[in-house]
């Protein structure tokens, strides 16, 4: 599989659009165990990212990732701003000057991104943060090499998102709720699940649309 510059741009455009659609779902989850702004934050940030991508029209994926990273860092705020900003900065460093990236490079990018989340957020797997999804996604990709791995990725990611529901948060704002944080899916995990949903579709043009609003609420 190859992932080209245009696919990347489509990916961002669609992710921004899906975030807008799921804004109130993400806000609602964050309301239950946080402060109710995760949907607003993400939708705002990726709308700007998408606009800047159109405006600057970068000619390689690395630069495109950087444009997105800068837009997120400057427009998301909260915990998710630095974290998603870091994700795209790390992707930028791996995809530097590339017009298109292959499976291996993609995996490498995601691994770098995941490690970026850990460095910045100091969370561990199981802490009920977006890292839970990134850990699951990257380790699946790492250990499953084969034609269907991107479609199957979605099954795995979806499960990872839903698995955050019963966990007690150990990092982020939800952690202050203690045991009361159990019972609600982590909003950042949902936005990261959505990230992979849209990515898979951008990659092979077909991946399913997941009805997160019914799954996670």
């Amino acid at each position: 599989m190859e992932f080209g510059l245009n696919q990347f741009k489509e990916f961002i455009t669609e992710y921004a659009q899906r975030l807008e659609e799921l804004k109130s779902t993400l806000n609602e989850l964050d309301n239950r165990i946080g402060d109710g702004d995760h949907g607003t934050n993400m939708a705002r940030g990726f709308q700007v990212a998408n606009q800047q991508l159109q405006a600057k029209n970068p000619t390689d994926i690395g630069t495109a990732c950087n444009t997105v990273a800068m837009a997120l860092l400057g427009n998301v705020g909260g915990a998710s701003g630095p974290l998603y900003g870091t994700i795209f900065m790390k992707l930028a460093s791996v995809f530097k000057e590339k017009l298109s990236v292959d499976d291996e490079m993609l995996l490498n990018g995601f691994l770098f991104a995941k490690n970026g989340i850990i460095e910045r957020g100091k969370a561990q797997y199981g802490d009920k943060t977006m890292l839970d999804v990134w850990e699951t996604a990257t380790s699946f990709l790492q250990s499953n090499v084969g034609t269907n791995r991107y479609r199957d990725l979605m099954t795995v990611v979806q499960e990872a998102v839903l698995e955050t529901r019963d966990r007690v948060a150990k990092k982020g704002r939800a952690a202050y709720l203690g045991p009361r944080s159990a019972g609600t899916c982590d909003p950042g995990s949902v936005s990261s699940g959505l990230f992979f949903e849209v990515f898979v579709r951008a990659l092979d043009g077909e991946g399913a649309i997941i009805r997160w609003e019914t799954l996670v609420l």
Partner: protein
Amino acid sequence: MKKLVNELDQYVTEMLNGLVSANPSLRRVEGTQVLVRRELSAKVGLVSGGGSGHEPAHAGFVGTGMLDGAVSGEVFTSPTPDQVYAAINEVNQGKGVLLIIKNYTGDVMNFEMAADMARAEGIDVAQVIVADDVAVENSTYTIGRRGIAGTVFVHKIAGAAAEAGLSLQEVHRIAQKVTENVRSMGMALTPCTVPANGKPSFDLEEQEVEIGIGIHGEPGIERTSLQSANATAEFLFGKIVNDLPLTSGDEVAIMVNGMGATPLSELFIVNHHVADLTSEKKLKVHKTLIGEFMTSLEMAGFSLSVLKLDEELKKFLDAPTSAPAWPR
């Protein structure tokens, strides 16, 4: 959602404009959500901030003897690093800048990234992280406690130290001392509604309250039934003094902070009992602040903060300030 608003995405911008036009001593840094003192003096700069929705924090504490700059993010959303950097850059007078950060993942990450940016530009930046909320037991989680209303004491005392001409290292030491000696805990009678979200942050029955809340409309550590003002004050005070080593004769400052919709009369009623509790404990109350300092939009409820004082802290607590939201 019933609010006095215009376009929701202009909430913070219009708020800052309305604030600046009422306070001639403040200036908005062009193109940012940063407010700074119009007249900066050659001293250590102090920057604080966080999401909006905590008014009068943080901009209300900008003035001589308190902050030099305040950064406002979207409602309840930590400001982005470029905004924090703009504040640092603007207030820096060559003597370094102290960041006063409340311990929330988002605040810490964004402020630290800004500090890195500033350091890369050769600005001397120190930081203090306030984690005064005793609602969360320290041991359970590695993230540490939240920063809530006690932060205002850090603004005041570190601000006075900076105004007195102390070095960044000294101002930092004093700010650190305040954070080590201040404890707070809050409770809510009603939720609040983030304008961009439109829904109440939680639902409570007529006689239910949330105990141990943060300042972003989050639910607290537990939901209980509403007790009397006295019993509520006693509970929060008990949690605080259990955590803060105090002995008879110690001097303290008290803050009874309204969350946004609590009538001042109720805060006075709370303080009426806090005064009893401190005197039972034989604490000497050097100063009591009652009012709105660190709010959560239109949430009803309050937080109680106790700061253990020594001579140095007392001196700076009592020093004059021109910040509009610090009471006379």
